[in-house]
């Protein structure tokens, strides 16, 4: 069917997706029949499904070679296996952090978990996409689930506003993506990313540039990169914190897969076109993200601007146009997901029934109220700011190394300088925790189980920072040159 196509692999490689789709339907049915009488059943079943999913991915979903399934629409390679494993673990952690929060806010619909699973399925489809068609379907499955999750707290006006903004802008970006894809299809006559990468080898052509520009714009929207970042602060602030946690972490793995499959693989023939666009987007994101975060008083909004700045870093890795840059971007994404899981987990931990711990000032005097949580938050903020020896430092370092390696010295210099500016607002949280009086702010609740997972998460941030090579080796193995 395709010239030089690899042999079709065994269907077993798609077991993670099959399991996810099947279990989402089963859990939906269980929720309809038993959800009203046994409230925690759906959450337990979801955790069980994710755990079995990890086992099944480990058993069947990992492959050392590149296989094409479903007539070339689906690709199973080492990267796909690794990203799916990471997405399963991140999703399970996110749901674990969210359970108490959801219970306290009486967000009890079992559909919440079903939508989480379908969003995860959308991410999986993106991770294994090898055709413009599957890329688009993956994005839609992910986005539709997310719109509903953002609006899930129906009595919250701010959540409804955030969901409306997210939905309208998301629909426009889907349209932009489809328009770009239709131009690529019109120029090449194929939807297949493998064929696209071999056909698009010619020099810049006006129609190609316009098509790629539309695709890059849609990708920038998914990442929340400037100038398509308007939705990020509002959605992060308005959505229930558990959903913000999901958008900030697991969803990022999908965005990474999207840019890798579409640009780094599908349009590998003409990197000159899109690397320049990505550079502009990345520089603007770093600037707006880091400067915007300084002015925030709400920690969710601050982390939203931080997410914009970090999206800039990931895009810088891709803008280098070399494989080392893609590896660094993967490493950065994983590091960012691990750290951000714990940062939002901390907000969920500190929130109580009827109280959203979402102001930066709420952290005042945390060190005297709860030294353990304060120390962990310190590690997380240092890691996100890029202070050694935490994982975030190495993630940024490798991006900068890749930029230097591809002779983009001014980009590397800019990234370093703007990171120093960015360190200010992370350190302000630390300042509030250690050097401000607690006032009458209460001592955080004990919640031993959640505290335990948070400790493990933070230890991972630290240990992977002290021993950074393991993650880099994995990134090098799953993204061979």
């Amino acid at each position, binding site marked *: 069917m395709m010239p030089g196509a690899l042999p079709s692999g065994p269907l077993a490689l798609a077991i993670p997706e099959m399991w996810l*789709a099947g279990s989402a339907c089963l859990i939906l049915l269980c929720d309809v029949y038993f959800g009203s009488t046994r409230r925690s059943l759906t959450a337990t079943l979801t955790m069980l499904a994710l755990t079995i999913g990890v086992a099944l991915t480990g058993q069947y979903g990992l492959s050392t070679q590149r296989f094409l399934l479903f007539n070339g629409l*689906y690709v199973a390679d080492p990267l796909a296996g690794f990203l799916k494993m990471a997405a399963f673990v991140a999703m399970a952690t996110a749901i674990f952090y969210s359970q108490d929060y959801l219970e306290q806010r009486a967000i009890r619909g079992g559909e*919440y978990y079903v*939508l989480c699973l379908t969003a995860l399925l959308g991410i999986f489809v993106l991770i294994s996409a090898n055709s413009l*068609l599957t890329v688009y379907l993956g994005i839609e*499955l992910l986005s*539709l689930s997310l719109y*509903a999750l953002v609006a*899930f707290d129906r009595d919250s006006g701010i959540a409804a506003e955030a969901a409306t903004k997210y939905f309208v802008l998301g629909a426009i970006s889907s349209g932009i993506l489809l328009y770009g894809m239709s131009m690529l299809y019109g120029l090449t006559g194929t939807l297949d990313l493998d064929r696209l990468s071999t056909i698009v080898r010619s020099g810049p052509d006006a129609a190609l540039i316009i098509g790629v520009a539309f695709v890059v714009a849609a990708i920038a929207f998914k990442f929340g990169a400037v100038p398509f970042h308007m939705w990020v602060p509002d959605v992060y602030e308005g959505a229930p914190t558990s959903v913000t946690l999901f958008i900030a972490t697991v969803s990022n793995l999908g965005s990474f897969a999207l840019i890798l499959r579409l640009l780094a693989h599908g349009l590998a023939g003409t990197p000159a076109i899109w690397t320049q666009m990505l550079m502009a987007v990345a520089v603007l994101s770093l600037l707006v993200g880091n400067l915007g975060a300084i002015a925030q008083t709400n920690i969710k909004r601050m982390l939203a601007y931080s997410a914009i700045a970090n999206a800039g870093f990931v895009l810088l890795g891709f803008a280098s146009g070399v494989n080392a840059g893609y590896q660094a971007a993967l490493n950065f994404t994983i590091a960012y997901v691990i750290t951000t899981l714990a940062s939002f987990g901390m907000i969920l931990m500190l929130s109580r029934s009827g109280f959203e711990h979402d102001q930066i000032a709420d952290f005042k005097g945390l060190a005297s109220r709860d030294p353990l949580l304060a120390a962990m938050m310190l590690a997380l903020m240092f890691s996100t700011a890029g202070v050694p020896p935490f994982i975030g430092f190495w993630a940024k370092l490798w991006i900068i190394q890749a930029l230097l390696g591809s002779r983009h010295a001014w980009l590397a210099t800019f990234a370093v300088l703007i990171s120093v500016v960015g360190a200010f607002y992370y350190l302000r949280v630390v300042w509030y925790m250690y050097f401000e009086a607690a006032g009458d702010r209460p001592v955080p609740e004990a919640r031993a189980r959640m505290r335990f997972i948070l400790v493990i998460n933070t230890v991972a941030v630290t240990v992977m920072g002290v021993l950074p090579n393991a993650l880099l080796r994995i990134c090098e193995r799953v993204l061979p040159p």
Partner: protein
Amino acid sequence: MLPLILFYLFATVLVLAAVAVIVSRNPVYAALSLVLCFVTSAAIWLLIEAEFLAIVLVLVYVGAVMVLFLFVIMMLDIDLEELRAGFTRFAWLGWIVAGVIVLEIAGVVLTGKLGIDVTRGAAPLPANYSNTQELGALLYGRYAYPFEIAAMVLLVAIVAAIALTLRHRPNLKAQDIGRQVAARASERVRLVKMDSEHRE
């Protein structure tokens, strides 16, 4: 010859119905004219041997979408005066859009005149050719994977719509389907024997 006559017949009805959609003052008439548009387009599709798509157009658009549309029109109290209020103010925008569309249509029609032959007709298909079968083979064979994912997207749409809008209020007068099905005629209809009245 007959297909050509049929084509012009349906095309004329289609254009007239389309004009009726725009000029009808009553939105219900406009919607019904749109139904006529869909039915005549389906007939034209039949003429170009796209049987499956023609049937789907009637089933989905006429049978489901337009019926829903009519329900919405009849249930909502639409104030036509309010809708027409901005008509002259924004008419210039409409003229610009219409002009662009006319230019585009002219571009398509004139491609033949410009020496670009992009409008080659499809080769006639044998009598026993079934495009329903072909579509099925593509959807359930080559594109089975995206087809399944699209099904999941629809499932998410249903789940999300219900999760976001269904509210269990205490005084809701909802149907209890189990009780409806279990109902017997003997419980519902009570026959009362009465003496007929006599006029004295």
